[in-house]
């Protein structure tokens, strides 16, 4: 029979960085696989945030960058969030996307930063912040999104907020949505988005 069962002795453990000093050095290795493994060993070690953040700044290989971001996500502290936030501003969509996905898994840690992010000067950052708002309970999310829509002028930011309201908004959002319909009557897509969101909210019975 060609099917072979290996002995019950497990194979030798691969070289996993046993102590922090070793891992820190491994993060600077010339070999991407070594850096990859090193990033993964920091998963529960808050002290690693500084080293991980520094490594993230200069890491050329995308999968190692993302492993570093995963490690920061798993540590999940205030410091991790601060290390990830700058990447919301990168030109590169892949990097922004990776950062936002890590932050989406940290609703409690990101909460203190939300108001500032929703008021950020950069349109893309406000749009990404709206993605984070989706992780909140419906009432809280609706309040934040309504507040944003009251003052928001950029059509794409409005579009994102309206989309989120369609998915989770409560009736509290109806007045602001109607006001937006008037403001953006001539803008492409927005009238459609607003009327769809209004219909979806109105038809969700309490």
């Amino acid at each position, binding site marked *: 029979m060609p099917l072979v069962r290996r002995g019950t002795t497990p194979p030798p453990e691969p070289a996993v960085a046993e102590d922090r000093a070793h891992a820190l050095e491994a993060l600077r290795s010339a070999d991407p696989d070594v850096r990859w493994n090193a990033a993964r060993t920091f998963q529960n070690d808050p002290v690693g945030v500084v080293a991980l953040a520094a490594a993230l700044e200069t890491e050329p290989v995308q999968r190692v960058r993302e492993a570093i971001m995963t490690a920061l996500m798993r540590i999940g502290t205030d410091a991790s969030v601060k290390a990830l936030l700058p990447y919301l501003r990168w*030109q590169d*969509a*892949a990097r*922004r*996307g990776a950062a*936002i*996905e890590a932050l989406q898994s940290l609703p409690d840690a990101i909460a203190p930063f939300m108001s500032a992010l929703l008021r950020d000067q950069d*349109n*893309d950052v406000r*749009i990404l912040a709206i*993605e984070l708002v989706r992780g909140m309970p419906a009432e809280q999310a609706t309040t934040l999104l309504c507040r944003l829509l009251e003052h928001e002028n950029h*059509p*794409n930011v409005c*579009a*994102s907020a*309206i*989309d989120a309201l*369609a*998915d989770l908004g409560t009736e509290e959002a109806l007045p602001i949505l109607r006001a937006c319909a008037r403001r953006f009557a001539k*803008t*492409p*897509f*927005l009238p*459609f*988005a607003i009327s*769809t*969101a209004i219909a979806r909210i109105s038809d969700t019975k309490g």
Partner: protein
Amino acid sequence: MTTIEGAFVRGTRVLVVDDSSLVRLYYRDALEKAGFEVEQAMNGLEAMEKALGGGFDLLVVDINMPKMDGLSFLRELRRSRTEAAAVPALIITTEAGSEDMQEARAAGANFYLVKPVSEEDLVAHAEVLAGRVR
């Protein structure tokens, strides 16, 4: 631009890729009214899986999406060495800068539009890129 009814090839298939369900709905309605067959994907990864199946005449792809952004998807598709690799692609960006245009071109986009896109613009560009109107 004039269009000639009846001269269209029936069943021109478009894959619409955007993480917003409202945007997908909006594009789908506009394109279906114009006679296209529309399929959807919500991120670049799903788009990759569908596009590789072949049979699409046009891709309409947003740039910013989770799991795999629009340009990464396009780059990956272009290097896939399948029939699907050469399908015309209309990229939808959020900015009008020339840098974005260059990046989109380099990734393999045939053309790009800036959000929010009107129904008329979408359909007109789709018809040209899918080769339905010369």
